[in-house]
C-alpha cells in the first residue's frame, strides 16, 4: 500500500458529540468571551487585509459605541426594538415555535399606529398614544396568530409562513405609503405626512431614545420572566416546548398554547414597530427604514439571552453596541468589512452555543499500532 493511499485513510473524522453534563454558567460565560475574542482576532486580520490597522479600527469602534455620548445615545435607540421583539421571540422559541416573522409583525404594528395617528389628528396625546400602542399590538399579534393556527391545526411549517408574511407586510407598507396614505406635503416622496405632535412618543431630549417604549420593553422583559416562572400558561409553554408528547400526556392544548405564544410574540414585535414609527421617524416610510432588520437581529438577541426573558435586556444592549460600533467605523473603512466584522462576532457567538451541550471530537482513521 502506497503512502498516498495511507494518507487517504488518515483523514481525520470530526464528529460532534453530546456532553454528559452541559457547561456550567461560568464555563458558558468563558465560552462566550472566547468566541468574542476569536471574532476580534479574525476581525483584526480582516481589517489588516483592507489596509486599516486593527488597533486603530478597534479604538474607533470602542470610542464610537461605549466610548462616547453619541455612541450611548445610538445604543439606547437601537436596543429598544431589539429588546421588545427579542423578548417576544424568547417566548415563541421556548414553545419551539420558530417565529422568523418579527420583521413583518413590526411593520404591521407600525401600520396600525400610523392609521390611528393619521385618522385622529385632533385627539390629545393621552388618548392617541395608548390607542396607537394598542392598535400596533393587536395587528402584530394578529399577524403572528395566522401562522400559529396554521401550525397547530394543519401542521404547516411556521418557519416558511412567518418568513413569507414578512414580504406581505413589506408590500403592504410600500402600497400604503405610495398609495392611499401618500403624504401631501412630501413633494412626491413615498412617505406619509408627519405625525402631529400628540402622536409622537416623547424622547429624552437630544437623543432618539423614546423612553416610554424603552420602559415598556424593560417591564415586558421582567414581567415575562415571572410569567414563565410563575403562571400556569408559562408552565404550559415550557412543557410544550421541551416535550410535546409530555404536553399531550398532561392534557395541554397545543392550539391554545401556540395562540398565547403568538399573541405575546407578535404583539411585542408590533409595539416595537409602533416605537420606530412614532418614536423615531414620526411618519411611515420605506419598510426597511421602519423595521431596519431589527426583526431578524432580534432572533440573535433572543438566542444570546439563552431564551431567558430578563437576559434580553443585556443581550439587546450588547447587540446594539456591536451594531453601533460597526456604524462608527463606516466612515473610515470599507462598509462591507464592517458588516463582515459585526456578522462575524454574532455568528461566532451563536454558533458556539452548541458547545455548551456538545463537544467536538476528532479521531484519526487508523488505530494506533500495537507497541
Amino acid at each position, binding site marked *: *500500500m*502506497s503512502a*498516498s*493511499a495511507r494518507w*487517504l*485513510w488518515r483523514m481525520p*473524522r470530526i464528529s460532534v458529540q453530546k456532553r*454528559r*453534563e452541559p457547561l456550567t454558567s461560568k464555563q458558558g460565560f468563558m465560552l462566550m468571551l472566547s468566541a468574542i475574542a476569536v471574532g476580534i482576532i479574525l476581525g483584526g486580520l480582516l481589517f489588516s487585509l483592507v489596509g486599516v490597522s486593527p488597533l486603530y479600527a478597534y479604538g474607533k469602534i470602542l470610542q464610537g459605541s461605549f466610548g462616547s455620548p453619541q455612541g450611548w445615545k445610538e445604543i439606547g435607540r437601537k436596543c429598544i426594538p431589539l429588546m421588545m421583539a427579542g423578548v417576544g421571540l424568547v417566548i415563541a422559541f421556548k414553545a419551539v415555535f420558530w417565529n422568523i416573522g418579527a420583521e413583518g409583525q413590526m411593520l404591521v404594528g407600525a401600520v396600525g399606529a400610523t392609521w390611528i395617528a393619521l385618522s385622529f389628528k385632533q385627539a390629545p396625546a393621552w388618548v392617541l398614544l395608548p390607542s396607537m400602542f394598542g392598535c400596533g399590538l393587536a395587528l402584530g399579534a394578529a399577524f403572528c396568530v395566522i401562522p400559529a393556527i396554521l401550525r397547530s391545526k394543519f401542521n404547516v411549517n411556521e418557519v416558511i409562513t412567518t418568513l413569507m408574511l414578512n414580504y406581505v407586510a413589506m408590500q403592504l407598507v410600500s402600497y400604503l405609503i405610495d398609495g392611499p396614505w401618500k403624504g401631501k406635503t412630501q413633494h412626491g416622496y413615498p412617505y406619509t405626512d408627519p405625525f402631529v405632535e400628540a402622536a409622537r412618543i416623547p424622547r429624552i431630549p437630544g437623543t432618539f431614545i423614546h423612553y416610554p417604549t424603552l420602559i415598556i420593553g424593560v417591564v415586558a422583559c421582567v414581567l415575562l420572566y415571572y410569567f414563565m416562572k*410563575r*403562571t*400556569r*400558561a408559562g*408552565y404550559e409553554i*415550557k*412543557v410544550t416546548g*421541551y*416535550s410535546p*408528547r*409530555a404536553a*399531550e*400526556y*398532561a*392534557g395541554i392544548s397545543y392550539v391554545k398554547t401556540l395562540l398565547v405564544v403568538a399573541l405575546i410574540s407578535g404583539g411585542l414585535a408590533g409595539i416595537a414597530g409602533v416605537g420606530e414609527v412614532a418614536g423615531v421617524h414620526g411618519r411611515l416610510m420605506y419598510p426597511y427604514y421602519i423595521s431596519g432588520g431589527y426583526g431578524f437581529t432580534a432572533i440573535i438577541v433572543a438566542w444570546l439571552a439563552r431564551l431567558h426573558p430578563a437576559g434580553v435586556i443585556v443581550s439587546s444592549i450588547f447587540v446594539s453596541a456591536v451594531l453601533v460600533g460597526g456604524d462608527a467605523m463606516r466612515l473610515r473603512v470599507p462598509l462591507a468589512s464592517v458588516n463582515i466584522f459585526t456578522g462575524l462576532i454574532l455568528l461566532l457567538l451563536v454558533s458556539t452555543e452548541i458547545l455548551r451541550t456538545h463537544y467536538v471530537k476528532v*479521531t*484519526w*482513521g*487508523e*488505530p*494506533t499500532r*500495537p*507497541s
Partner: protein
Amino acid sequence: MASEGFVAKVRRKLVDALSLLGGERPTKALVGPTQDIGDTVLEAKGLRKVFPGVVANDGVDLTVRAGEIHALLGENGAGKTTLVKILYGVYTPDEGEIVLGGRPVKIGSPRDARDLGIGMVHQHFMLSEANTVAENVALGLPEGRMLFPEKEIRQRIQDFSGVYGLRIDPEAKVWQLSAGEKQKIEILKALLARARLLILDEPTAVLTPLETEELFSALRLMAKQGKAVIFITHKLDEVMSLADRVTVLRKGRVVGNVKTSETDRRQLANLMVGVDLVPSKKAVAQAGELVLEVAALSVIGDRGNEACRGIAFNLSAGEILGVAGVAGNGQRELVEAVAGIRRVASGCVRILGRDITNHGPRAVANLGVAYIPEDRLGMGIVPDMSVKENLVLRKYWQPEFSRGMLLHEGAVDVYAGEMMDAYQIMTPSSDTVARKLSGGNIQRLILARETSGRPRLIIASHPTSGLDVKATSEIRAKLLRAAGDGSAILLDSEDLEEIFELSDRIAVIVRGQFVGMVPRAEATLEEIGLLMGGATG
C-alpha cells in the same frame, strides 16, 4: 525503488488506488484469522472510567475466550454498558489496558474496534430506516467502496443467514421490520465485518420469546465456531440458559466471575443486588365496584392501520388485568385510547360509569385515573424541567396547586417534599432537572405523581422495563398495594413474569384483538405463550 521506471511507478500507484476503491484493504485485524476454542481473545485489565460525579467503572478485569458466551450481569447503573462501550471504542478508559489476541491495543473509535474484529449490537439500533437491509449491511462493511456491490452483498447476506438461521429479506426496507429483524441486521453486519468478538447490549429486551430462542441458538452456533460473545443482561434466566461464564458487576466493580455450571440463580441474584430477593404475590382480589368498561373499541394506529379491533372488557376496583402480547399487537394503542391521548375510532370507554370516549387526557385524569406511560423520558416526564415541576405535570391545574392564573409555588414545594420522602426519590433537591435522575428514580417520580392520590384506575405500561431488580420489586409492590387499597389496574407489560406475578386476569392481545382472557390461577406460561404466538385457543 531506483530501478522502478516511471511507467511502472504510475501503474503501481494506479493499482493501489484502484484496489483502495475496490476495497481490498489489507486486513488489520490483530486476532489471527483462525482462533482456537479456549484461546484468550480479549483481556481487559484494571479498566477505570470516571464521568463527572460517577465512577462508572473501577478496576474492572474481564477475560473472554474464543468459543465462550460471556454474560455481563448487573443492575441498571452497574457499569455494564460503559464497559462494553470502552471495548468498542466509544469511550476511552481513564486507566487500564486492553489486550487483544495477546497484544495491547488502543481502541480509539468504533471503526478501530471493527477493524480489530470486534462487533457490537447496540441496545438502540444504528440503522438507516429508509434504506434496505442490503444497503445497511453494505454501510457496515470494513471496506468502503465507491459503487454499491449489490449482488455480492445479497449473496453474502443469504450465505450467512442460512448458516446461522438469521433469515431476513435483503430487499426489505428497515422501517418495515420488527425490532427482532433489525437486530438480525446488526448481527449480520458484525459477522460480515469478520467480527471475532461480538458484543450484544441487552439483546433480548426488544425480542419476543420466540425471537429470543432464535437469537440464542444463533449465538450458540457462533460460539461453537470459535467466536467469542459478550452479552449484557439483567435477566438471570438468560444467563443460566445461554452463558458459559458470567461476570457480575455492581456499582462499577466486578463482584463475581463464575462458570454458570458452578452457580445458580440465587447466588447470582445475591451477587447482583447484594440482598436476597423476596418475590411478592398478590392476594386474590375481592370483586369491587365496576371501574372501567371498554366496549367494541377500535383504534387507528400511527400508520393508519386499525391497531385495535372490537376490544371489550370490564375491570373492577382492586383488580389487576394484565394485557400480554408480543410488542406491536395493539396494546400500546389500547392503553393510550383508554388514557384519552389517542382518538377512539369507534366503540366506547366508560370510567366509573361516565362515558369519556374522546374527551381527552385531562378529563380522564380528573376522574382519578393514573397513567404510567411506556415512554418514560419521552412522555412520562419533561427531562429538562425540575423534579417538582414534573411532580405536578398531571395535576398543576387542580385547585390545590393553582391560584387563578398563577401556580401556587408553596403548595408545589410542600407536595414535592412529601412525595420525595414517601416514594424515596433520590435527588439532590426538588429543583434538580429530572434528566439527572437514574431510571429507577424517574419511575419513582412518575409513580409518586400518578399513584399518590389514591387513583380509582391505574393504567400501567411497562412499569418496570429496564429497571434494576430492586426498583422492579419495589414498583411491583407499590402496584400491589394500590390494588389492595382499591385501585383497578390495567397492566400492559412485555414481561410475562411480571404479568403472572401481578395480575388477577390475563388478556392476550394478537393483531389488535383479545384472543383469550384467563384467570391467572388457571393460566400457564405455555398456554399464554401459545396464544401470544397466534395459536387459536
